[in-house]
């Protein structure tokens, strides 16, 4: 059975390393914060200028001067720090933020990602995504494997304007966990009850499949 969005987030949370700084994009990535494994210390950075982001505020305690990059009201944890946008991207560009998790409209087998523009249709802008994907050591994409028409979003080549080249390391979808290797996309895990065949059929890109592909543990 394919994963739901929360389960994708849950699977990505297993990738979190102890004592690291993490930037979570809007959408599924935001949910990752709900599944931090026990014993793993993480600090969340939001590129509008906060380190040590906490949960949403209790009702009535929202502060218009305390938001995340998705413009949502937030709180901070003890040990938080606030800074300007240039310092924030100094952290990102300077690779002080170890992991970025973000959504995508398309990814390609060489690690390109497209998530900012549909020409003539949706032109909202890249926000901080281009800085994030050009910089982070580790980038994990959280996305649905296919679009609403059932077409693969994991492609030989991106068709949309790209956000970054050859930058993502892993893709976690509702069907599979994929790793970007120098030889191409390697299938690491499959969603519980989803067969390798189903994944292959849902993927336009070529997949490297070696040995037995285990089910994800959620």
């Amino acid at each position, binding site marked *: 059975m394919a994963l739901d969005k929360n389960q994708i987030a849950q699977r990505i949370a297993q990738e979190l390393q102890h004592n690291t700084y993490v930037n979570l994009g809007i959408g599924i990535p935001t949910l990752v914060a709900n599944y931090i494994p026990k014993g793993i210390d993480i600090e969340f950075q*939001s*590129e*509008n*200028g*906060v380190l040590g982001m906490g*949960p*949403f*505020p*209790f*009702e*009535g*305690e*929202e*502060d*218009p*001067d*305390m*938001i*995340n*990059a*998705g*413009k*949502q*009201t*937030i709180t901070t944890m003890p040990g938080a720090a*606030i*800074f*300007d*946008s*240039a310092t*924030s*991207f100094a952290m*990102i*560009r300077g690779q002080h933020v170890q992991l970025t998790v973000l959504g995508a409209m398309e990814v390609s087998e060489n690690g*390109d990602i497209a998530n900012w*523009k549909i020409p*003539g249709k949706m*032109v*909202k*802008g*890249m*926000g*901080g*995504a*281009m*800085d994030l994907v*050009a*910089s982070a050591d580790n980038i994990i994409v959280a996305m649905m494997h296919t679009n609403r028409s059932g077409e693969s979003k994991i492609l030989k080549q991106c068709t949309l*304007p*790209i*956000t*970054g*080249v*050859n930058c993502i390391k892993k893709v976690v979808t509702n069907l599979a966990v994929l790793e970007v290797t120098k030889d191409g996309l390697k299938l690491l895990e499959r969603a519980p009850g989803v067969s390798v065949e189903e994944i292959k059929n849902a993927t336009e890109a070529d997949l490297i499949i070696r040995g037995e592909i285990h089910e994800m543990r959620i």
Partner: protein
Amino acid sequence: MINKVVNTIDEAISGVESDMTFMVGGFGLSGIPENAIEALSKMDVFGLTCISNNAGVDDFGLGLLLKRKQIKKMISSYVGENAEFERQMLSGELEVDLIPQGSLAERCRAGGAGIPAFFTPAGFGTEVAEGKEVREYNGKPHILELALTADFAFVKAWKGDTAGNLIYKGTARNFNPLMAMAGKITVAEVEELVPVGELDPNQIHTPGIFVQRIFQGAKYEKRIEQRTVRTKE
């Protein structure tokens, strides 16, 4: 001490003319110079180039200037919250230059810091890199980005003193300190204007040297774009 206080909003925005380039601080609606924007939206200035991370919403922030078609060109990183903006852009009425958020921030800082150009990895291989010089450093391609400056920078802080020193609160800081550096004339509005000597010199975010005019805003709506809360268990 150099006194930067202006007593009226008219004095604060005097010298603003059509076809000028403005920087406007804020991220989404957080930390935007509400009073200056409102005053500008009542002036007959048009053909403006506006450098701002976002473009406000339809009826607040820069949306007010967009509605009156005062803005000719937006230089931003994300403009997705504004339907009128999208309409003007898709119809070609509004010119839009979208640039990565980190490059936007750094280009403003560079403009204020006398750094005319720098290399960044952001945007390499994308539309953003078109026509830009590429150079490899540390085994990774980087593109050359140019500094941004503006005729006026409008910023908003929490507290300020009469010498123009500014302190921001929370994530309302964002682009404000960088744009304050890059304006030929930087106009700062604050929630609270205090005499010199009240702010700790160690805790100033924007030293007064970057600010040409300061005033206390008449009122602040501080609208929230995405009110997200959790419920007490």
